[in-house]
């Protein structure tokens, strides 16, 4: 009797286990499907639906850092900075080697003018990924903000060495050269190459305009900065560059109007 009972119990447990496995497999499939769908919705601009799906995924797979990172991206796009920050941090807590989340968080911090925090975060990443072009690029941006232009140049050069012709890295190196007041011809070349790759990039237009300013070619400078500002009227750095150029060429009235226009935005 007891041996029969044991047999039945074993059989019952086996059945239970196999059912559980198959059920959990079905759950995995659903989670994967929803994760993919959320990604598609997010890239299609349907942020709310994507957000809901990612939340569901996180509830069912709380130890996976990817949905946290992707949800952080959605919050970042929606302008919910604190939530974005929290989710990126959670992703990093779950996996400190998750490079994308680290870079996303650093970008967010840079946007919030928290240069030192971004710098520390990226430097931590360098311990694990010393050959990451993205990390070097991020550190270069931090160094520009910290006023260490020569260090920034080294980072941008390294990023280009690692990843080759990336227009963003070209643009950033051009900007760093411009800020150093050295290699202006090289800056012009790099900036033009970046803009050739992405002609509608306002940041690249701004850099080229700024290079022309530093080279004393003011008509071209105004042309590119104006284009950049028309594309991104809310970008203070572009406005400030154009104000500087107008001031330099003695067009104070235009400079003042630009400042006033910016104050009303």
């Amino acid at each position, binding site marked *: 009797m007891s041996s029969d009972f044991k047999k039945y119990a074993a059989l019952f447990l086996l059945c239970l286990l196999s059912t559980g496995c198959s059920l959990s497999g079905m759950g995995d499939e659903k989670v994967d499907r929803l994760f993919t769908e959320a990604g598609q919705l997010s890239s299609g601009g349907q942020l709310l639906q994507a957000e809901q799906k990612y939340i569901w995924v996180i509830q069912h797979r709380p130890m996976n850092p990817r949905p946290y990172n992707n949800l952080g991206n959605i919050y970042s796009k929606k302008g919910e900075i604190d939530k974005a920050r929290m989710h990126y941090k959670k992703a990093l807590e779950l996996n400190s080697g998750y490079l994308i989340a680290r870079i996303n968080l650093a970008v967010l911090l840079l946007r919030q003018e928290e240069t030192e925090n971004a710098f520390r975060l990226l430097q931590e990443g360098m311990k694990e990924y010393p050959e990451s072009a993205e990390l070097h690029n991020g550190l270069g941006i931090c160094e520009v903000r910290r006023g260490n232009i020569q260090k920034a140049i080294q980072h941008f050069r390294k990023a280009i060495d690692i990843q080759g012709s990336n227009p963003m890295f070209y643009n950033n190196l051009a900007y760093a050269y411009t800020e150093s007041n050295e290699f202006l011809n090289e800056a012009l070349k790099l900036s033009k190459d970046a803009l050739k790759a992405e002609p509608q990039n306002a940041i690249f237009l701004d850099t080229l305009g700024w290079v022309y300013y530093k080279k*004393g*070619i*003011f008509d071209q400078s105004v042309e590119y900065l104006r284009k950049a500002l028309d594309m991104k009227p809310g970008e203070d750095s572009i406005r400030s560059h154009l*104000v500087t150029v107008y001031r*330099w060429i003695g067009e104070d009235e235009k400079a*003042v109007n630009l400042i006033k226009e910016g104050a009303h935005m």
Partner: protein
Amino acid sequence: MIKKGMKRLKKPMIDWKMVRIPRIMVRVFIIFLMAVVLAAFITSLLKNNGGEHLTFLKKLGSFFGIQKSRIEKQEEPDSNVMDIYFARLVYVKGDVTVKTKKDLRFEKAEKDQILNEGDSIRTFSGGYAEVLFDEGNRLTIKPDSLVVIHDMKENRLTKIRKSSINLLESDVEAVVRRPKIEGSEFVIITPTALAKISEAKVAVQVSKGQDSKLKVFSGAVNLQVGDESVEVERNQSVDISKESKIEKIKDLPSAPKLAGPANLTEFFFKNLTDMKVVLQWGNTRTDITYRIQVAMDPYFTDLVIVRTGLSEKGVVVQGLRSGIYYWRVSSITPEGMEGDFSDYSVFKITIDQTPPDIVLDDVLLLKVAGKVNAQISGQTEPDASVMINDNPVICDKTGRFKYVLSQVSSGDGVTVVAIDKVGNRNILKKAIPIQ
């Protein structure tokens, strides 16, 4: 009518019928067929053996454009796979003319004019032109030069580009960028030499007597003179005689580095007589003299100061009027070899005798706990410093200022003083309107 239940009769697959084709059509068709076969045969014959022995067919082929004569073939070896690209005149100053391949005479050059193969550019005294090639190479043509654009071709398959220019009596500078496709080159042809450049900054002069001088400031150039070929390296100069002989290759001094003032420095002076700016540069060599140029444009065509034989690494510049100035320096060896100019730097002179404007807004009276405060606001020149009733006031970037005078009473006034960067002062007094 077919009744239900009855079997349908099966239709034959092909419904044979007698079709009569008119005889004339058959004849036309046969003639057309023969013509096609004959044309195909002639074409294949011409393409395969060049039609050496078939003079008539050769002429016929030439007429229809199937085959070109041997001479034509030699002139255009790869014309079937070559794309022609363009160049553009990005800067024109003074007397510059262009003759296109089709035209018989030179016409006034226009900025942004497109240049094609076979076009000629002529600069006269005081005339400057800058040509930008599609691949980013730049050619600066100095006064009294005649340049012909010889080649601007890109191989459609390999994307290798060949650009070449012919220099007659000329003085030019070329900045050739590293080619994107290995094997691309920029060639400068003088009456006695041919310089192949892949990435370099060079200056080439061709004299009236057909002597040439090539200076390489960066990169390296392969120079072919007659059967001789030499590699001219960075900071080297070579003279080529009109008899197509290479004279000795000489070293050029490197360009000095500008030390100060920093690029885009702005200087303010109250009077022209006060205007004094010190321009400084650095160099490790001690046995050389310097040439400095100060110009009103980045192309250095509108020169306002040129001084040579300077032994010091600095110079005091005086008497410049309000404006933006560009300056650069070159080194000259005791043997008279002049190297490349430094990168240029920009500075601005402002001679300002005008006091800053002050525009006051209406005074705003604020009653607080039975006392009256007056808010004074207005606008002055950006960067001017402002004092209101002897109290310093901070202006914003646009020159706007705001200050609150506390506990004002009837008969009180406000005095606004604005002082610009040069020290020009403006004073505005106004009564505070308290009823």
